[in-house]
């Protein structure tokens, strides 16, 4: 086992976790008004481990490669936003598929998170049993449709 592993159920090392955190906040940073958390703040690592275990297994090598591309002197998480973006773009050729799978997983994790839903003004809950109120709609808008009369075709028409 790698010495850097900090928890037995973790799939990544601490330095990989630092790269991941920076990548996540690059994908979804906190909103400026502070209402929406960054994607760093949504327990992504445990989500991936439990919901997408196959993808979790791909994380270490992808994060290592991103860190490698970022450069030997500066760690990915220490780069400016623009430099992070440059590193991500540079890693695209090799990690294109990884990013295309990562993004929907991050978004799924993010938009099911309690803090996020509350930030959007939504309740963080299952749809059942409370359900939702939906207005009937204005049925008087159908008056012109009624006025035009029947539009079905008589079947004895030639």
């Amino acid at each position, binding site marked *: 086992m790698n010495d850097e592993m900090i928890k037995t159920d973790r799939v990544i090392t601490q330095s990989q976790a630092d790269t991941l955190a920076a990548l996540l906040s690059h994908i979804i940073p906190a909103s400026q008004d502070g209402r929406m958390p960054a994607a760093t703040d949504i327990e992504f690592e445990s989500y991936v481990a439990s919901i997408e275990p196959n993808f979790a297994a791909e994380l270490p090598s992808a994060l290592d490669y991103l860190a490698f591309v970022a450069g030997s002197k500066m760690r990915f998480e220490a780069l400016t936003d623009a430099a992070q973006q440059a590193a991500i773009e540079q890693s695209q050729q090799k990690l294109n598929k990884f990013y295309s799978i990562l993004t929907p997983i991050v978004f799924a994790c993010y938009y099911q998170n309690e803090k996020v839903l509350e930030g959007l003004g939504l309740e963080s809950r299952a749809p059942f049993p409370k359900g939702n109120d939906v207005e*009937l709609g204005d049925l008087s808008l159908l008056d012109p*449709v009624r006025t035009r009369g029947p*539009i079905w075709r008589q079947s004895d028409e030639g």
Partner: protein
Amino acid sequence: MVNKTVDVLIIGAGASGAAAAWSLADTGMHIMCMEQGDWAQQSDYPSNTKDWEVRRHKEMSASPNVRQMKSDYPINDQDSPISVVNYNGVGGSTVLYAAHFPRLHPSDFKVNSLDGVAEDWPIDYFQLEPYYQLNDKNIGVSGLDGDPAYPDKQLPLPPIPMGKMGNVIGAGFNKLGWHWWPSDAAIISQPYEGRDRCINLGPCISGCSQGAKSSADVTYWPMAIRAGVELKTGCRVREITVDDQGMATGVIYYDEQGQEQEQKAEVVIVACNGVGTPRLLLNSKSKLFPDGLANSSGLVGKNLMMHPWNHMEGFFEPGLDSHLGPQGSCVLSQQFYESDATRDFDRGYGIQVTRGSAPVATAINGYNRGDIPWGDGHHDAFKKYFGTNIAVGVCAEDLPELHNCVTLDPEMTDSDGIAAPKINYRLSENSLKMLAHGRARSRELLEAAGATQINDYGQIRYAGWHLLGTARMGRDPATSVVNEWGRSHDVKNLFIVDGSIFVTSAAGNPTTTIQALALYIADTMKKNLANLFD
């Protein structure tokens, strides 16, 4: 092991099998239904948990090839631009259906006489009307009376809510002077027969946790079982057996443990849907029926119709809350439903307006389109696209064509080793022209309603919801598989009641008609009990 002979054996506990079982129960006969799947549990549906948006695409995916439950059989759809979706369990595909419930029109039964295409049905709208009505009452259907697209009809319950999006799209339709109407839905808008009303959970197509969606497992099955029908789950029928006189004698099936069993029956009714039924008949080969059972016309499996579907969505100003409400039912326009000689295609289509997307789907779809980025612009973009979209689907009438078919795959099997179905399907020139017309009208509609952005996704793949035509009804045994009341021309004690008996597809969701047909066939059987096999 051979079990005791039953009077009637129904294969398949979906929309049609359930309706037929209920109707026949009052004969006092011993009626058994065999279903390969189990009961679905409302408490297991995704909308019981916060992660419902992810779960709905996994264990409750509508594709059997993705879902891969024990009761599912694989479907080879590589040679089709449309993939089949279904559910295999008590209630059949209604467990997942959107419950949009438009009837056929009178003209749909007369397409050859009126338009010179395909074949007329051997029955007409007005013969089926009392069964539409009975079905609406039995299961609980909601809608607004007075729709000028139909002969007069009354539904038992008031419409489900259109929401704010209904006002916006309705105004768009009005600007264009087009027909539109709140959708008829097999969803109860008020408490009905011991079930509580719809509370707008949203994801009807991953199962209704409230039980307000009128799927066959919560409507017909409790009634049929109370009336004495025996429902055996976990029984996968491999073939229908016949005697030397060419009469059906029962079935060979695999029980839950995968053990081969035999069940004898006086009458066999097939209700396995437009793919499962031809599969079973083609798998039922014998000396007398070397090309499959009931197939002297060669039409078993042919003429598959699935309703090609164009999907477009428009985005509007915030405040629409379009993500709320029963997902697949909002508004239906039948402006382009009836034939029109000035158009460059035969027959017509429906425009089905459905709800917007929940948060996860909004973010992922927005990213895939390039509208919701990584980084600083993410939050503003999400707000712009969340709860603001309205979906517009074009449901095109699919005319019967021999080459669109269900056959047996030479290699693929289900977990019991039974040959799986293979779909060969092409969109016809007529369908392509119809879809092009529908796309242009969908765009016009969204523009008229004030959409700020429109995305056209074209004809979509996972739209094989409606499985029709593969054992069609008719008076002539040379050109049809069953007669005008669902009895096989070749095997006098074999009936088919599911969507495979449709002669043409019409341009709307078929289940109200499938169930009306099943009730009509069961009723006709009851009226003819004394000479059922003459």
